């Protein structure tokens, strides 16, 4: 969720929304031939791969030969880290966001809602968490979406599974984790994020808390039987991928750069093992502290992951750090403020409580088994 102005509207400046504007299909008089597009796309992909492969060597060349920094120095370490990780992460992000933009053109919020409306609880929760990954979702849009889901007959717990999964497990978070920490951490994060979303939604569903939804929301009934999806052509889907890159990469790159710069500073200057005593495995209390610190903070995954990587390197335990990250991206005070418009305080408290407990358990579990 975003920082919020006094009138309760999310601040415009850093809304890294997942909602993507899909360009309308209008007949174009002179469209480039398909083979031209394929050749261009193929060339771009090969060029991408060649540059990506050369990044490590290039960053060393720049740091030690062009800038003349000493190998093994604090500054040299920081600069090399920054020059390598920034282009690497941005390139990965561009490629994946493009792919996800295409996948996402198959899943409109309307379609997701129709899929979920007829499902029983358990199946619905699993589906909702999975669809949360691929459905375009903007936290600015969370409240209307919440109303729309409930109004169409999606159960409360299933709606929550979606609302927890959508901001937490998304392509930006997964790409950054993969690029900076490897596929194992990315997979662990995705898996446990989904489990938290499914389990929290199930628990909320079992608690029968419908009476804590604001009355006017409960009375809304929407007829979705007449909805029709706009059929998109492949050219339209590729355009959707491109506009996703423009929207998402265009918005998160400053966060990535600042995050990596902070991470680079930690990388070069903080002594090895410095954090082991306060954020290490043996400090059991560090997980709840990390979750508590994370709740009021809001950042998106793009800004927080480079910092997370640097903390890990200096001896912080993976469970503690993942718990901190999940808490920062999944629950926040501004979100509580905006949800208050549709939920009574008790349900918001239960929602935050259950998700926090889930994150806490994940943190402890990782610290215990890894």
């Amino acid at each position, binding site marked *: 969720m975003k920082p919020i102005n006094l009138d309760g509207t999310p601040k415009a400046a850093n809304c890294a929304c997942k909602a993507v504007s899909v360009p*309308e299909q209008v007949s174009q008089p002179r469209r480039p031939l398909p083979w031209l597009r394929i050749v261009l796309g193929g060339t771009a992909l090969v060029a991408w791969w060649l540059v990506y492969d050369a990044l490590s060597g290039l960053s060393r060349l720049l740091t030690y030969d062009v800038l003349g920094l000493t190998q093994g120095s604090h500054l040299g370490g920081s600069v090399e880290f920054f020059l390598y990780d920034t282009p690497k992460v941005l390139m990965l992000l561009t490629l994946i966001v493009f792919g996800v933009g295409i996948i996402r053109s198959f899943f*409109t919020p309307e379609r997701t*809602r129709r899929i979920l409306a007829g499902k029983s609880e358990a199946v619905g929760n699993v589906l909702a968490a999975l669809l949360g990954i691929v459905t375009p979702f903007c936290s600015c*849009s969370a409240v*209307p979406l919440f109303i*729309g889901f409930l109004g169409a007959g999606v159960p409360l717990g299933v709606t929550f599974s979606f609302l927890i999964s959508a901001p937490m497990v998304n392509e930006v978070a997964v790409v950054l984790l993969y690029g900076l920490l490897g596929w194992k951490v990315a997979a662990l994060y995705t898996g446990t994020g989904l489990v938290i979303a499914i389990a929290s939604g199930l628990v909320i569903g079992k608690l029968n808390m419908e009476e804590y939804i604001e009355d006017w929301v409960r009375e809304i009934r929407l007829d979705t039987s007449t909805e029709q999806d706009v059929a998109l052509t492949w050219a339209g889907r590729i355009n959707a991928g491109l506009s996703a890159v423009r929207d998402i990469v265009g918005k998160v790159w400053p966060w990535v750069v600042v995050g990596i710069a902070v991470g680079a500073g930690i990388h070069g200057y903080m002594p090895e093992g410095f954090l082991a005593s306060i954020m290490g495995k043996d400090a059991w209390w560090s997980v709840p502290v990390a979750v508590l610190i994370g709740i009021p903070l809001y950042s998106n995954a793009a800004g927080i992951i480079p910092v997370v990587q640097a903390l890990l390197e200096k001896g912080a335990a993976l469970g503690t750090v993942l718990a901190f990250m999940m808490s920062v991206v999944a629950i926040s005070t501004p979100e509580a403020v905006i949800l208050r418009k549709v939920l009574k305080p008790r349900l918001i408290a239960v929602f935050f409580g259950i998700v926090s407990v889930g994150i806490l358990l994940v943190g402890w579990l990782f610290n215990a088994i890894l």
Partner: protein
Amino acid sequence: MDIKVLGPGCPKCHEAEKIVREALAESGVAANVTKVSDFQEMAALGVFATPAVVIDGQVKVSGKVPTKKDVLAWIGK
């Protein structure tokens, strides 16, 4: 013509409003444009993904920013 632009105030909603106003200015069509940021009112209009544009009670787009071409087509230009 009565045009409503719906959105709680995220950048996309402002963009949608800007495009609607530009299209109106360009085509010279006179219309009354209002910004709706109240969730209750949005729900009453049947919109659950923002930004959305409603013209004379009919939802023209929801969940994405329309292009100027779309808007011009809706207002009959």
